[in-house]
């Protein structure tokens, strides 16, 4: 009894001295801390906030990037007006992004979590399966697009040969979104699986054993013990899914540069801004819309996190 109290006292006192020494040597730490805060802040402000604000400003203009700043014509809300009224790819793009989000969440994310739970149990060959499922994540999306092209090609693709059909997987605008989503899922599942598996490995096995001793079956111990403990990982997974579906871009760009049934906002922004099109005003307006949509999700996420911290 006495020995434990004394060690606790010793610990508190040592903590106190440490705190005291920090107070005594403030200039050095202060410099370090301020440098560590100021430099990243500067980066964030210069590379994220300033360009974002400039995009908002540019979205009210018509500018092709040629000539000085005074060659910019200010046209008010015209870009937004055009986007919502006479720009045909816009509404399909919004719809496709939402489909993407829904599909990614209910399809590959849940599948990845299931795979992680299954592979977490020490079964024969689990390492092999882990590698096999994770493999697509290592491949670049350019390569993923190419690999799936081999499956999906209408005339020479494997899928049509095996099924003996003539479906135009990438070209038919009623199926190509789903074809691309399957290709994305192929990659996304492994990604989520690995993150979740890493989280599961961090769960103390004694908790599960305790649950088993208390008579909980496999499913009960997962949903009542493991799943609540995985809360931080679950949060990360949700954020990743939201980010992945909003930034969805690479694969559709590889397939057909985001046209014909594969319109998504990020691709529309690129079509207008990157390269020679140089519709900076119009593209910025699209980017601002994308930013607004993202901020809805970010706000929700931050509110949840802060609520959590307040508890």
């Amino acid at each position, binding site marked *: 009894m006495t020995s434990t109290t004394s060690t606790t006292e010793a610990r508190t006192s040592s903590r106190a001295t440490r705190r005291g020494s920090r107070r005594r040597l403030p200039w050095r730490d202060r410099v370090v801390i301020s440098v560590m805060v100021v430099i990243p802040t500067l980066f964030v402000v210069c590379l994220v906030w300033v360009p974002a604000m400039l995009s908002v400003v540019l979205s009210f203009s018509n500018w092709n990037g*040629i000539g000085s700043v005074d060659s910019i014509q200010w046209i008010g809300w015209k870009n937004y007006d055009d986007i919502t009224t006479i*720009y045909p790819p816009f509404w399909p793009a919004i719809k496709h992004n939402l489909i993407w989000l829904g599909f990614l969440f209910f399809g590959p994310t849940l599948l990845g979590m299931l795979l992680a739970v299954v592979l977490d149990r020490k079964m024969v060959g689990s390492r092999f399966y882990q590698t096999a499922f994770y493999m697509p994540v290592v491949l670049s999306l350019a390569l993923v697009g190419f690999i799936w092209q081999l499956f999906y090609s209408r005339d020479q693709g494997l899928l049509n040969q095996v099924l003996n059909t003539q479906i135009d997987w990438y070209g038919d605008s009623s199926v190509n979104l789903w074809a691309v989503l399957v290709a994305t899922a192929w990659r996304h599942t492994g990604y989520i699986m690995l993150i979740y598996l890493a989280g599961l490995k961090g769960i103390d096995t004694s908790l599960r054993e305790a649950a088993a001793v208390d008579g909980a079956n496999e499913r009960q111990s997962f949903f009542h013990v493991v799943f609540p403990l995985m809360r931080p990982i679950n949060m*990360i997974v949700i954020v990743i899914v939201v980010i992945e579906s909003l930034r969805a871009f690479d694969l559709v760009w590889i397939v057909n540069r985001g046209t014909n049934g594969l319109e998504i906002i990020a691709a529309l922004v690129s079509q207008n801004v990157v390269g020679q099109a140089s519709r900076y005003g119009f593209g910025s307006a699209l980017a601002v819309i994308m930013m607004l949509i993202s901020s809805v999700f970010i706000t929700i996420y931050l509110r949840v996190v802060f609520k959590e911290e307040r508890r």
Partner: protein
Amino acid sequence: MTQHHSSLPNLSSAIATAGSSRRGFLRGAMLGGALLSSSTLLDACGGGGSGSATGSVAFGMNEAAGSGPAYDRLKAMADAYAKKSGVSVKTNAVDHNTFQDNINTYLQGSPDDVFTWFAGYRMDQFAQQGLITDVSDLWPIDGMSDSFKAAATASDGKQYFVPKDYYPWAVFYKKSVFQKFGYAPPTTEADFTSLMKQMQTDGLVPFAFADKDGWPAMGTFDILNMRINGYDYHISLMAGEKDWDSTEVKTVFDAWRGLLPYHQPDALGRTWQEAATSLGKEECGMYLLGTFVVDGIPDMEDDLDFFTFPELDSSIGADALDAPIDGFCLAAAGQNQTGGKEMLKYLGTAAAAEAANAKATPFIAANSNADTSGYSALQKKSVEVVSAATHIAQFMDRDTRADFASTVMIPSLQQFLNSPDDIDGITSSIQKQKVSIFGS
């Protein structure tokens, strides 16, 4: 071939994931690398112009060093000029797509004196914005026909461009197939229709067709518009002077709709390479494409032949075609204007074209005095066809504003191929967007 993929998307994905995981960190590191390399790339773009005003000319090329025959030919031209004139030529070789995507920034920064570019509206736009120098005192160029001069002329009536080479768009077919079934290249609309019908009876799809990349269908629109409404109408339509919801344009779409049953279905999922393969495999009888179709089926080059798209209206004739011309411009912000112009003068000569063709697989030289002995049969025929044409168009995405072509026409033409019966809806949508982009 006129539009290419960009490598930029990887950046945005890297930005989005950075920080969310350790993989994010790695991606972030890659992003850093990408930014570094892009800044060196900008250096590479801009570094050329600072040379001294005498003795050295900077030459910007839209082909990366060692990327193939296209680069070898440009390099050979630069070397030949340096050797002939004693002027040192500083070459700046940039990847084709990167060069094209950065062209606005490049020309406004410190560009090379002479740079590779395209004829047509894309050149005209730069001329109007004062980004390239008037070189009309170099014209007429010995060996270049009036149609080349017209393609080098901007809307102010002056020349801003020196042509290098070109490739025509035409209807390709396999000689062996035409021989086997006893077909002959059609010259009238009636012949054309009966040929297509006969092919269907013989179990062939008359036209191979692909538009996954969005630009190949522009070739079909171009040729139908030039056959139905004529070259002049086509050029003013592309320049934004005519309305897209006019009867003339609707007639073109209507004719196209009539031809669609003779084209391969589901074109939107097919690349032009796959369509070329179906021509090679004798599933299709013909294919309207540029001469680069050979790159899709290289081992069949000897069996390939082509004819120009037949006449559809006898009052219009069949004397116009798409034959994109590549060449050179003089950057207005280049440091050495006189030296640059001297070099341009040389680049337009037959000697320059011969120097290029001596070192690599030849291109079809714009200068008709150039030696053609190294040309393949297809190239020789291309020369004949293009010299016979009175009007040469540059292809839709070079004859109109780049933003209009890529953000309006690609989706609209694909939309048309999806629902060919909605011509009114599609043309009125194009017209609204055209007014918004062109401002009238």
